[in-house]
């Protein structure tokens, strides 16, 4: 046997084929371990805090399906829904991603996004298919893990460039969060919230104006309520003004910038503005330099309201600020002091001597005959206005009442008052007429007239009867006529009747001539009646 060489090879090869104890293959499980460890770590690291949110209802929310999103990025999902102990609200547990930790602050708000159809537009249409999701608005403050969800989405869903301002108004009207704010008809902002002022005498609206329009909110910018139809009746007549259609339906605020403002007048954030009720109010320029006067009018001031214009030759230079009723208990006299506010700045002055005050100028004008007079502004509404004009012939009639704090402005009776006065006189004269007597006489006349009328009625009845008889007679006459007609028909020329009638007439003529002869003879010989005809003599 030749075993030895094989054993030699074997002995030689044993050392050659020796391999390292730990093969490279063991790197594989290490890599696998690392990969899965990394995957698990990643998922564990992605999981952030578990938060709880209270909602009034779990409508549309589903465990493991409903996402929590911010700016349409998923940052968590609902893991459990349970009913709270108060049995009125529900609580959802949500697993947030680790990167969402920064958003979970005290003022962070959550709300459920559902499809919404409103006047302002349609939103959340995507949720029709995908089902609702919970949206988050990051807040500030301390970190927190328990939240109470909002029932309505907040207006400012995310941070936008712009500024917040405060508007002061007396009446909230139809304004609510989301009410649009227009600038020359462009929607440039919205109402964020409203609250009562600390003294509860005004409502403060927080509004947001988007950039770049926020730079037009300047010192003299005016805000007014632009909602619905603004129908105003004033001394100037009727006025109808409407805002954009959307404001017409859901209310709105508008503002405009003043041409006087420069970019240096841009108001800082949270500035307070007055919100005017109407466009007209917002257009009225407020003059700081005013002169107040009191006017006493003789007649009624019905139709004169606070705010009624005071005009000088038709141009408004002020307004009525107060109308009151005063009773002088000593003299039992009633006064109606009308306080007016004149704005001399409305009158442009020429040749202005600097040392003369407006008050002096006004006194000078009064001396020249400037008088106040009530005038009807609008015949339709009956509103009155105060017109100032020069009546140099009229005297300054000072009223006895000197209790007022303001200087008195002389007045004259209005043309309407004069008219009323003359009308009164006519009425008085009318009242003096002996109406009672006249009435009695009139009554009598009327009674006799009635009698006459009755008699006339009787006569008319009789006449009626007569007429009936006449009718009968006429009927008879008609019959007679008919017979006559017949007779005449018989007497037509050529007919037998006509011939006989003709013959008869001839005979009748002959008879008449013999009768004539007889009468002639009798005339000549009347004795023949007694003696008979003398036959000899006659021939």
């Amino acid at each position: 046997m030749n075993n030895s060489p094989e054993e030699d090879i074997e002995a030689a090869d044993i050392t050659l084929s020796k391999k390292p104890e730990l093969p490279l293959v063991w790197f594989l499980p290490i890599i696998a371990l690392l990969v899965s460890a990394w995957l698990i770590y990643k998922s564990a690291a992605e999981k952030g805090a578990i938060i709880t949110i209270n909602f009034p209802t779990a409508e549309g929310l589903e465990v493991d399906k409903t996402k929590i999103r911010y700016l349409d990025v998923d940052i968590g999902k609902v893991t459990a829904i349970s009913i709270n102990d108060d049995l009125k609200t529900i609580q959802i547990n949500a697993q947030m991603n680790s990167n969402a930790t920064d958003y979970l602050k005290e003022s962070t708000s959550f709300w459920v996004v559902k499809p919404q159809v409103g006047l302002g537009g349609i939103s959340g249409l995507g949720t029709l298919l995908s089902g609702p999701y919970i949206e988050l608005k990051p807040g500030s403050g301390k970190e927190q893990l328990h939240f109470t969800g909002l029932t309505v989405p907040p207006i400012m869903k995310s941070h936008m460039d712009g500024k917040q301002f405060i508007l002061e108004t007396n009446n909230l009207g139809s304004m609510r969060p989301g009410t649009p704010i227009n600038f020359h008809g462009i929607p440039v902002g919205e109402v964020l919230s409203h609250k009562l002022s600390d003294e509860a005498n005004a409502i403060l609206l927080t509004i947001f104006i988007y950039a770049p329009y926020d730079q037009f909110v300047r010192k003299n910018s005016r805000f007014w309520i632009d909602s619905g139809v603004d129908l105003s009746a004033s001394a100037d007549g009727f006025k109808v003004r409407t805002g954009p259609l959307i404001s017409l339906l859901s209310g709105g605020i508008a503002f405009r910038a003043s041409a006087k403002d420069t970019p240096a007048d841009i108001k800082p954030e949270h500035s307070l503005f007055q919100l005017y009720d109407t466009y007209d109010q917002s257009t009225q320029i407020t003059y700081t330099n005013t002169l107040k006067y009191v006017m006493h009018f003789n007649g009624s001031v019905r139709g004169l309201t606070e705010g009624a214009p005071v005009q000088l030759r038709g141009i408004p230079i002020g307004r009525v600020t107060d109308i009151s009723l005063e009773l002088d208990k000593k003299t039992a006299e009633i006064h109606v002091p009308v306080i007016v506010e004149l704005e001399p700045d409305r009158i442009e002055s020429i040749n202005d001597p600097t040392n003369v005050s407006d008050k002096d100028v006004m006194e000078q004008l009064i001396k020249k005959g400037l008088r106040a007079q009530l005038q009807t502004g609008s015949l339709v509404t009956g509103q009155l206005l105060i017109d100032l004009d020069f009546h140099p012939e009229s005297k300054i009639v000072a009223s006895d009442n000197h209790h007022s704090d303001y200087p008195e402005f002389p007045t004259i009776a209005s043309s309407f008052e004069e008219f009323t006065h003359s009308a009164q006189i006519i009425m008085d004269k009318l009242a003096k007429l002996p109406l009672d007597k006249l009435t009695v006489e009139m009554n009598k006349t009327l009674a006799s007239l009635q009698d006459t009328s009755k008699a006339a009625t009787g006569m008319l009845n009789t006449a009626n009867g007569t007429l009936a008889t006449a009718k009968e007679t006429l009927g008879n006459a008609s019959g007679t006529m008919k017979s006559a007609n017949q007779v005449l028909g018989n007497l037509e020329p050529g007919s037998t009747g006509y011939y006989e009638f003709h013959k008869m007439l001839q005979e009748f003529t002959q008879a008449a001539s013999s009768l004539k002869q007889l009468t002639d003879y009798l005339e000549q010989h009347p004795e023949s009646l007694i003696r008979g005809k003398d036959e000899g003599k006659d021939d």
Partner: protein
Amino acid sequence: MKLIKTALAQGFIRCHDCGYLIKSKVQCLCPICKSSISARRHQNLHLTTALIISSFCLYIPANIYPIMAVTELGVTARHTIAGGIMVLIQKDMVPIAILVLVASILVPLMKLLGITLLLLCVHYRWQVNVHLFTRMYRIIAFVGRWSMLDIFMISILVGLVNMGGVANVIAGPAATAFAAVVVLTMFAAKSFDPRLIWDHQLT
């Protein structure tokens, strides 16, 4: 009682490449073709063990991560393997659910456990039912490729269902891990030397 009379027991090694019979008991080079020969692929036990441990490591993410993300009308739903089976059961598709359960969970798990069992058996020289274990090995080696069913299905879905927001399927991280598990267990089964089961077995 004595060991089964194998070639090794009689002191022979057969060259894997050229079939030359060498009277040796340890690893050596074939005198004819110079390839490395050994009586048993003992070295491969390391490979098998490493592959199995890797498979175990990857089996965990394969089951806890979503295997695919299905977007339907803008709604994205991520499904793990178990979650997918639950959905199928909810939709009254129990046979398919059972199929997925068997192909995607039980078969890989059985493969892993089976190979582990074989490895342990070889390592600790347990006295077992050798015929049964051999049959198990054969089944594991055969069934391995069928576990790729899931991966094929997902890759087809990803390719076919791609309609943007209406319907879209994206493979998840678990798909990769699952594919790796299947491939690794296939290699593990391949690298295992079933003759090792028979060694140290007393008849």
